[in-house]
């Protein structure tokens, strides 16, 4: 009796979940960016399938969200992470339900490979009301942030920047006269700074926003530099700026509606080499769409 019940259960699991199409790992100089548009996922049966992928803790997390839209987005975020990572395991088919996650000592989410393989895969997710994104790299930590371009800031943009950004960044924003352009630059800077802190993976206390400057690299489109400010103990105290490498940044438009920032640790072997970002839109189990492949210096 017990055996037939179990084989029934086994059958229903394998029927319910279609296979995931495997993916080639990113190369060392690549970041893969996947995104889902919640409005494009309407099928309740598909959403039900997604919820079957989640761990009990993740399901609790979804349930805690206040409101159907927030619940749906939380579900899509976990689904995107599980299915995307599962697809990169090209050695064998990996059930996305079987993936385990943990947090590093500072709280950054990572895959818990359970000593199966020493996987070099890194990921980071970001979401807004209307878009959920997941960045994937190999060998180097990655941080991403996406923001709605039209997002309105309730405070005065410059006051906000003075409170939280670095002095150099405030100066750049202060020279922009058009308030709309200024607001957009503010948002772009926010995504870049968030992406950096998330790539660093040590929590916000490790890199308060006013201790580093991200500036655009002249003559490039979408490439940025990081400068860290540190106070040298002297009399009077001086501020030194270190703008050497270590981290690569890319900022670009996503789905015409969002800014996306990607930050990866510069691979020491290939320091300074250009990086490629491959953007794909997806509906897990349904379809992928290649959106762009772009090189950033």
């Amino acid at each position, binding site marked *: 009796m017990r055996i037939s019940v179990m084989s029934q259960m086994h059958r229903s699991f394998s029927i319910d979940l279609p296979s995931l199409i495997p993916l080639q790992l990113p190369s060392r100089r690549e970041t893969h960016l996947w995104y889902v548009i919640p409005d494009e996922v309407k099928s309740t049966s598909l959403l039900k399938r997604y919820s079957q992928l989640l761990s009990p*803790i*993740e399901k*609790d*997390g*979804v349930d*805690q*969200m*206040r*409101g159907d839209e*927030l619940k749906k987005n*939380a579900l899509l*975020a*976990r689904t995107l*992470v599980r299915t995307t990572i599962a697809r990169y395991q090209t050695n064998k088919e990996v059930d996305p339900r079987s993936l385990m996650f*943990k*947090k*590093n*000592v*500072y*709280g*950054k*989410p990572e895959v818990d490979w359970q000593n199966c393989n020493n996987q070099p895969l890194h990921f*980071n*997710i*970001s*979401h*807004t*009301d209307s878009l959920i994104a997941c960045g994937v790299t190999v060998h180097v930590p990655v941080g991403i*942030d996406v*923001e709605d371009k039209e*997002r309105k*800031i*309730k*405070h005065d943009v410059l006051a*906000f920047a003075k*409170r*939280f950004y670095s002095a150099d960044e405030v100066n750049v924003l202060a020279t922009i006269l058009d308030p709309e352009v200024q607001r957009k630059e503010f948002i772009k800077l*926010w995504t870049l700074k*968030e992406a950096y802190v*998330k790539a660093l*993976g*040590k*929590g*916000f*206390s*490790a890199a*308060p*926003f*006013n*201790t580093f400057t991200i500036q655009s690299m002249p003559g490039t489109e979408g490439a940025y530099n990081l400068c860290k400010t540190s106070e040298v103990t002297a009399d009077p105290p001086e501020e030194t700026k270190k703008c050497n490498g270590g981290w690569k940044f890319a900022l670009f438009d996503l789905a015409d509606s969002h800014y996306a920032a990607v930050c990866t640790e510069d691979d020491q072997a290939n320091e300074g080499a250009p990086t490629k970002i491959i953007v794909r839109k997806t509906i897990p189990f349904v379809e992928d769409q290649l959106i762009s492949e772009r090189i950033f210096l």
Partner: protein
Amino acid sequence: MASPSTSSLSFKAPSIQSTRTSQVLRKPLSFQPISFGRFQSSKNLRLQISCAAKPETVQKVSDIVREQLALSADTALTAESKFSALGADSLDTVEIVMALEEKFNISVEEADAQNITTIQEAADLIEDLAQKKPAA
């Protein structure tokens, strides 16, 4: 990190500094269910040991949160309400903190700002900071 050189008193608790550092190694399994795209630095021990804030403070915080997140009138808010469960992202949290600073005339250190996750925590922090201000 730049310390605010304004007239409002920013929070410093020298006796807590050592315990704050020891809090860095937090348990990796305390799952923050919502902040998938963000993660939190160690909790401020001080927040846990202070007395609970007055109901009026909690109410004022709720009003600010409701406005910042554009919540509908039928979204019930309690002291335990988590910002992330209400759909707040990091930018919202920072804007909430700025609004709280303006409303209560306090100055919140960035590390504390990032640690606020519920209405109760915001209210507790506000009352702690308000208490430490020099008498007018």
